[in-house]
């Protein structure tokens, strides 16, 4: 149970952070502008 909660919490927080970072980066053209 505690394993499941930990995994779910980390997946949720981490997944949201990564997905939103990627999404906002795409939306603001950070990948195509060559800022990297």
């Amino acid at each position: 149970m505690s394993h499941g909660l930990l995994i779910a919490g980390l997946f949720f927080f981490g997944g949201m952070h990564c997905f939103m970072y990627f999404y906002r980066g795409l939306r603001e053209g950070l990948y195509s502008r060559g800022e990297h």
Partner: protein
Amino acid sequence: MASIETDIQGEAAALEPTPTAVQAAVPVRMQYRRFTPFQRWVHFFIMCSFTVLVFTGMPLKYSDQGWAQWEMGLLGGVQSAGIIHRFAALIMVTCVLCMLGFLARILIKTRGHFWGPGTMVPARQDLQDMIGMFAWFWGKGRPQLQLDRYSYWEKFEFWAASAGVMIMCVTGSMMWYPQLTTRIFPGIVLNFAIVNHSGGALLAMGFVFVFWHFFHAHLRPEVFPMDKTMFEGGLPVDEYAHERPLEYERRVREGTLRNVLVPERSPSRRKVENFLWWTITGATLVVWAAFSLFVVWVASFWIGSF
């Protein structure tokens, strides 16, 4: 971004807080050394051993599945996979011991003062950076991150991975030496060890390959398609000043910038390195795709079991 020429001998350059002012007349191209060869080698061995551990361990966790039996056959059977798994575990444990030695050295050097700017200990600025980023995610303006030597996502990863690897080492050792373990503890701790070892491995795999490390090292807009700093050791000074403004300003203020400037690699060496990095990136992509598929399969397995 091109590296700038710097004069590590120039006092004036080191006192000026802008990276362009660090340019000077000496014909030596310098870059900021972010990671020492020791840290890079430890990372390399952890990366390799971790991948092998996952490949040889996961078929045991899902031993009733067809793909797991096929993979076990590929590895030469359960015994052979066990030997490979233990060998990789020894490499991982050695890396952990090296890192503990490294931490002990820091503790001795700083006389126990292991926190503060430039360390892995979370600070108030990390919270502010994280809040700024989440505000950006939900529609506010993009924050100008005030990153020090380590960002909040690097600190989070470091502590999560450190805790995880400790759990894996302890529980793995318990299962490696069950008789010794049960001489000291009641037998039920072996059940505890198995559950934590396999669950921790699954979490670590997801954490590294799917939703944290892989993203921040490869897919962040600032580093896409790969942050080579951990492999090359350094990055151009202007890039460093832009990415880690707090550390840059602190080093300039303290006059320690020159301590972390090293000569840039020769063009021929960079060619070889570029080839290697693209190979690593390609291999990582393949591993990432395989593990992502696996995580999707695990999720559907869980959902199906309810």
